[in-house]
C-alpha cells in the first residue's frame, strides 16, 4: 500500500507532463494549468496516504523499499530503480508536492496570457516529478538521476523567456555549475561501487563504519557529496548561479530556487549522514561553509535593489543555517528549518510576485513604496513572511531558526564561532527582510507606481494568485508549532532524530536571538519607514557581490576559452589538418582525373565499385 502510494506520488506529475506535451495545441492554455495543478495535487494526496500509512507503523518500523526493475545491470553491478519511503523522504515528499501544488496553482494566475503557457506547465510538472524522484530514491544512482533532472528542469525554467539573453545566460550558468556538482557526485558513486560493492542506501549506511576504516576513501566520498550539495544548494563557493536564476518567472523562483530544489543539498547531507559522521573533518567543513555562506550572502542581501534578488540571497543565507545545523549533527533542526523555510520563502516569493505582477514587471524596490494601502492583503502576507524569516515569535522561523542558533551554542571553540556567526546572521536577516518590507510597502507611492497600478487595474492579484498566498501565510504562521521546546517535538519525533537541549537554555538563547532580531527590525524601521536616519552607503565589495563572478570569469571561463581557441588554431588546424592537406593537394591534381570519372552517370560509380572489388580480388590472387 505504501509502495503503491509512493509510485502514484512519483508518477502523477510525469503523467501530467506527458498529457500536456502530447496534446499540443489541442489543449487550451488554461487547461494545461489545471492539468499540471491536478497532477501535482494527486501526488500530494498520495504523499499524505503514504504518510498516514507510515504513521500507523511502529516508530522503529517505518521504512518501505519498493523496486520496479533493474536500471543498469551487468553481471557485476545491478542498480535497480527502487523507491525508499521513510520519515525523512516523507517529509520531503509532503513539502515538494504540497508546496508544489500551491505554486503551480498560483502560476495559473501569474502566467495567464503568457506566450507558451503550456510549455511552462509541462516544465514545472516535470520539475515536481524529478524532485520527487530525488527524494524517494533508494540508492545513490537513482538519487543522482533525480538530482540531474531537477537541474535540467531548473535550466529549462530559468531560460523560459528564450528571447532574453540574460535569461539564457543564467540558465546555462546554472546548468554548468550543477554539472560540476554532478561530476563530483559521480566520483563519490564510483568509490562506493569499488569499496562498498553496492549503491543501495540501507546496506551502505549499515556498513558505514566498515567504510570508515579507510579514512581516505570515506573522506573523499563525503567531500565529493559535499561538492554536489554545495552546487545544488548554492553555497559558497558554487553559489553564483542562484541570483542570476532569478531571471526565471517568479513562481519558478519560489518553487525551485527557494522552497525545494536548492534545499536538496541539505536533504543529501542529512540522508547520507552516516557517511559524513565517518568523516568528521568534512562534516565540520559543512558547518563552516554554512556559516560563511549565511554571513556573506546575508550581507550582500543588504545592498540589493531588486526585490527578487534580496529574497534569493536570503535563501542562500537560510540554507547556510541548514548546512550549519547538518554540520553539527543537528539533522532534525536542519530538516525542520528546511520545512518552515519552504513555507515562508515560498510565501515571500509569491507575495513579491503579486507586487511585480501588479507593477507590470517592475522589480526595482527603489521605484516601489507605499503599496500598503493599495495591497493590504499582500502587505499582511509579506509581513508574516518577513517576520517568519527574521525569526520573530510566534511565526514559523522563530521555532526552526532559533533551534539551530541554540544548538550551535554547545561545544568547543569551533562551535562557539559557529554560534557567533549564526547570531550575527539573525541580525542580518532582520535587517534585509524588513528593509525590503519597508521599501516596498511603507512611505508614499511614487508617480511611476501610481501609473502602473492604474494601468493594471490596481490592487491585488487575481484569485488564483491570492489563495495560494493565503494558505502559505497560514503555514508560515502556524508551521513552527510542530516543535515547541518544552512542550512537544512532533517533527523530530517523527523523523526519529531528537537532539533537543535543556529547555531553559533553549528559551534563554531564543530570547537573545529574538532581541537581536527586534533590534534589526528597529534599525530598518528608523531608516526606511520613519526615515529619521539616512541609509548608509552600500560598500562597493557588497555591490560587486564580493567579486566571485569576476574571479571565476578570470580564473576558469577565460582560460578554458583561450585553451580551446589555441588548441583549435595552433594544433588542430596547423598540425592535424595541415599534415594531410599536403597529401590532399597532391591528390587534388590526381583528382582532376577522378573528376572526369565522376561524370554523374550512375554506370561509372558501379564501375568504380566493381573496380574496387576486382582490385581486392586481384590482390587476393597475388597473395594466393
Amino acid at each position: 500500500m505504501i509502495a503503491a502510494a509512493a509510485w502514484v506520488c512519483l508518477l502523477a506529475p510525469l503523467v501530467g507532463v506527458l498529457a500536456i506535451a502530447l496534446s499540443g495545441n489541442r489543449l487550451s492554455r488554461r487547461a494545461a494549468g489545471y492539468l499540471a495543478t491536478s497532477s501535482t495535487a494527486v501526488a500530494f494526496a498520495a504523499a499524505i496516504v503514504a504518510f498516514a500509512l507510515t504513521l500507523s507503523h511502529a516508530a522503529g518500523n517505518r521504512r518501505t523499499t519498493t523496486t520496479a526493475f533493474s536500471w543498469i545491470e551487468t553481471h557485476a553491478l545491478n542498480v535497480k530503480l527502487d523507491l525508499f519511503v521513510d520519515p525523512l523522504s516523507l517529509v520531503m515528499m509532503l513539502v515538494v508536492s504540497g508546496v508544489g501544488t500551491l505554486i503551480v496553482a498560483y502560476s495559473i494566475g501569474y502566467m495567464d496570457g503568457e506566450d507558451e503557457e503550456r510549455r511552462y506547465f509541462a516544465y514545472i510538472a516535470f520539475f515536481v516529478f524529478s524532485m520527487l524522484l530525488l527524494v524517494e530514491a533508494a540508492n545513490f544512482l537513482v538519487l543522482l538521476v533525480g538530482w540531474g533532472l531537477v537541474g535540467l528542469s531548473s535550466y529549462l525554467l530559468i531560460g523560459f523567456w528564450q528571447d532574453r539573453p540574460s535569461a539564457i545566460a543564467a540558465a546555462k550558468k546554472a546548468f554548468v555549475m550543477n554539472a560540476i556538482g554532478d561530476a563530483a557526485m559521480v566520483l563519490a558513486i564510483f568509490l562506493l561501487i569499488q569499496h562498498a560493492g553496492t549503491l543501495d542506501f540501507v546496506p551502505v549506511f549499515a556498513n558505514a563504519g566498515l567504510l570508515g576504516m579507510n579514512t581516505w576513501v570515506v573522506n573523499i566520498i563525503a567531500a565529493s557529496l559535499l561538492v554536489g550539495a554545495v552546487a545544488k544548494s548554492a553555497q559558497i563557493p558554487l553559489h553564483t548561479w542562484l541570483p542570476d536564476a532569478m531571471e526565471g518567472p517568479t513562481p519558478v523562483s519560489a518553487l525551485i530556487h527557494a522552497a525545494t530544489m536548492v534545499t536538496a543539498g541539505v536533504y543529501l547531507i542529512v540522508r547520507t549522514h552516516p557517511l559524513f559522521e565517518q568523516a568528521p573533518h568534512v562534516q565540520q567543513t559543512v558547518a563552516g561553509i554554512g556559516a560563511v555562506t549565511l554571513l556573506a550572502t546575508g550581507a550582500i542581501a543588504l545592498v540589493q535593489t531588486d526585490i527578487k534578488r534580496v529574497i534569493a540571497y536570503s535563501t542562500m543565507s537560510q540554507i547556510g543555517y541548514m548546512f550549519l545545523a547538518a554540520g553539527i549533527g543537528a539533522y532534525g533542526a536542519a530538516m525542520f528549518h528546511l520545512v518552515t523555510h519552504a513555507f515562508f520563502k515560498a510565501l515571500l516569493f509569491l507575495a513579491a510576485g503579486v507586487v511585480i505582477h501588479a507593477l507590470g514587471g517592475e522589480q526595482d524596490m527603489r521605484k516601489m513604496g507605499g503599496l500598503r494601502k493599495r495591497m493590504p492583503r499582500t502587505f499582511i502576507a509579506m509581513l508574516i513572511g518577513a517576520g517568519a524569516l527574521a525569526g520573530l515569535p510566534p511565526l514559523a522561523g522563530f521555532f526552526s531558526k532559533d533551534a539551530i542558533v541554540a544548538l550551535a551554542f554547545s561545544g568547543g571553540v569551533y562551535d562557539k564561532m559557529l554560534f557567533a556567526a549564526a547570531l550575527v546572521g539573525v541580525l542580518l536577516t532582520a535587517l534585509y527582510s524588513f528593509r525590503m518590507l519597508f521599501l516596498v510597502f511603507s512611505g508614499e507611492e511614487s508617480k511611476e507606481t501610481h501609473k502602473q497600478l492604474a494601468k493594471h487595474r490596481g490592487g491585488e492579484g487575481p484569485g488564483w494568485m491570492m489563495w495560494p498566498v493565503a494558505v502559505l501565510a497560514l503555514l508560515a504562521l502556524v508551521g513552527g508549532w510542530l516543535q515547541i521546546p518544552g512542550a512537544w517535538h512532533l517533527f523530530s519525533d517523527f523523523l526519529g532524530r531528537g537532539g533537543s537541549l535543556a529547555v531553559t537554555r533553549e528559551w534563554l538563547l531564543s530570547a537573545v536571538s529574538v532581541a537581536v532580531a527586534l533590534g534589526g527590525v528597529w534599525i530598518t524601521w528608523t531608516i526606511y519607514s520613519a526615515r529619521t536616519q539616512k541609509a548608509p552607503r552600500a560598500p562597493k565589495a557588497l555591490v560587486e557581490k564580493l567579486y566571485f563572478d569576476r574571479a571565476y570569469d578570470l580564473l576558469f571561463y577565460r582560460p578554458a576559452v583561450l585553451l580551446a581557441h589555441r588548441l583549435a588554431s595552433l594544433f588542430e588546424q596547423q598540425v592535424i589538418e595541415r599534415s594531410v592537406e599536403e597529401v590532399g593537394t597532391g591528390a587534388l591534381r590526381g583528382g582532376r582525373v577522378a573528376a572526369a570519372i565522376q561524370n554523374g552517370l550512375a554506370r561509372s560509380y558501379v564501375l568504380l565499385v566493381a573496380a574496387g572489388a576486382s582490385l581486392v580480388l586481384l590482390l587476393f590472387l597475388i597473395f594466393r
Partner: protein
Amino acid sequence: MLTTSLIALPLAGALAVFLLPASKEWVGSLALAVALAELGLWITGFFGKRQFDFGSAKIQFEQKHAWISDLGISYHVGLFGFSLWLVGLTVVVMTAAIAYGLWAGRERANAYYALMLFLTGAVVCVFTAQDLILFYVAYEAMMIPLYVLIGVWGGARRLQATFKFVAYTMAGSLLMFATIVVYGISHGFDLTSAQQSGSVWLFLGFAAAFTVKAPLFPLHGWLADAYRESPPEVAAVLSGVVSKVAIFGFLRIALTQFPGPTHDLRTLFLTLSAVGLVYGSLLAFRAPDVRGIVAYSSLAQMSLIGLGVFSQNELSLSGSVLQMVNHGLISTALFLLAGVIEMRTHTGALARLGGMARGRPILASLIVSIGVISLAVPGSNAFAGEFMILAGAFQRGWGWAIPGLVAMVLAAMYMLRLISAVLHRELGESVTKKAPDVRPAELCVIGALLAAMLALSVWPAAISKRSFACLDQTQTTSASSSTPAQFGLACVPSPSSTEQTR
C-alpha cells in the same frame, strides 16, 4: 539463415533499386521499403523458436562455407550478443538515413539509394564476419560507397573532404590488409579458430587502421571536413555506424586475438582515449558551426568508448556496447537535425542562427531533448553508458575516470551553447520568419530515433546486460577472458573482487 539474409537482403535491394526505371520518389520508396524489411528481419532474431540466446557465449546464427579452401578462407558469419546490437544499430540508422534522403529528394536516385543499401549490407557483413578476409572485403566494400556518397552528393568543398578521407582510410586499410595476410598465413584466417598472437607489430597494424576509422586522437584529421561536407544523412551514417566498425574491430580482433600486446599497450591507448575525450570536448566548445560541434563531440564520444574498451572489465565493456548504440542514435539524430536547420537557413554557422524556437515548438523540443540526452543528463541512456564506462575505467585506475568527469562538464558547456545558438535569443540573420517548423516526415524519422533513445533511457539494462554472456571461471583461460570460439566475460560477484581476480 538470419545472418546471411541480413547481409543479402540489402545487397539484393541495392541491385533492384539500381535497376528500377522510375522517378526518384519511387526509387527512394523502394529503398525505404527494403530498409524497413531489413529492420523487420533483424527484429525476428528476438522471437520465434530460434531466437537469439543472450545467455550463451557461443557464436549464434552461424553459417560457414569454404571459399578459398587452400588457405582456409571461408565465408563464415555469425553473431555474438554485442554484434547483434551493432547490426541493430546499423539497420535503424540506415533506415533513418534513407528515409531522410527520400525526404530531402536526393538526385541521381538509382545510384544514391543503391549505394546506401549496398553500404548497409557491407556494414552488416563487417559486424558478422568471422573470417579475416571476409572482414577485409566487407570493410573495403563499405568504404567505396562512402567515398562516392561524399564526393558526389556532398557540399561545396566535397572533393577536398573526400580526398582527405580517402588518404587517411586507404592508408589504414592497406596497413590492415598487409597485417591480415601476414597474420592469417601464420595463425589462420578464421577468427573462431585462429591462434592468439603475441606480436606487437601485428596488433599495431590492426590498431592503426581502427584508430583512423573511429577516429581516435590523433588520427582524426579527416573528421571535421568529412562530417561538414557530407550530406547530413551520410554524415549521420559515418559517425553513427561506420565509426562503430572500428570499435568492433578493436573488440573482435585486436583485443581477442592479441591479449598480450593489448595488455602491454593498454596505457598508451587509454591515454590516447583520455586525451581525445578532453581534446574533442574542448574543440567542440569553440567550433563555429552546428556540424563542427557534433563532429568534435563525436570524436569525444568515440574516445570515451575507446576508454571503455581498453579499460577491459565487464562494467566498462558492457557500457561501451551500450554507448555505441546510444551514440549511434544520438549523432544520427543530431546530424539529421543539422540537415533540418540547414535546409531552412542554408547555413550551419552559429553566428547566423538564433531565435528558431519561437513559433517552431517541434523543432525546439527535438533539439532540446536530443541535446540534453547527448550531454548525458543523468537519467538518459547516454548517461547510463557513460556512467558504466567511467565506473569501469575508475576500477582500472582512478585517474582514467577523471578526464571523463571533466568532459561531462565540458559536454554541458558545448551542447548548451549549440542549443542556445540555434534556438534562443533574437532571430539570426539567416533565419527568416517564414522558415517552417519540423515537417511530419522529418518528425517521423527524428522522432523515432528520439523514441529509441527514451526507451533506452528507461531501460538501458536491455543492452548492458545482453552484450556479453557470462563465462564461468573455469571457462576463462586467457587474460582477455575470452576463448576464440566464444565471446563472453568472466562473471564475478561484486566489483570489489574484480580487481583481485584479474
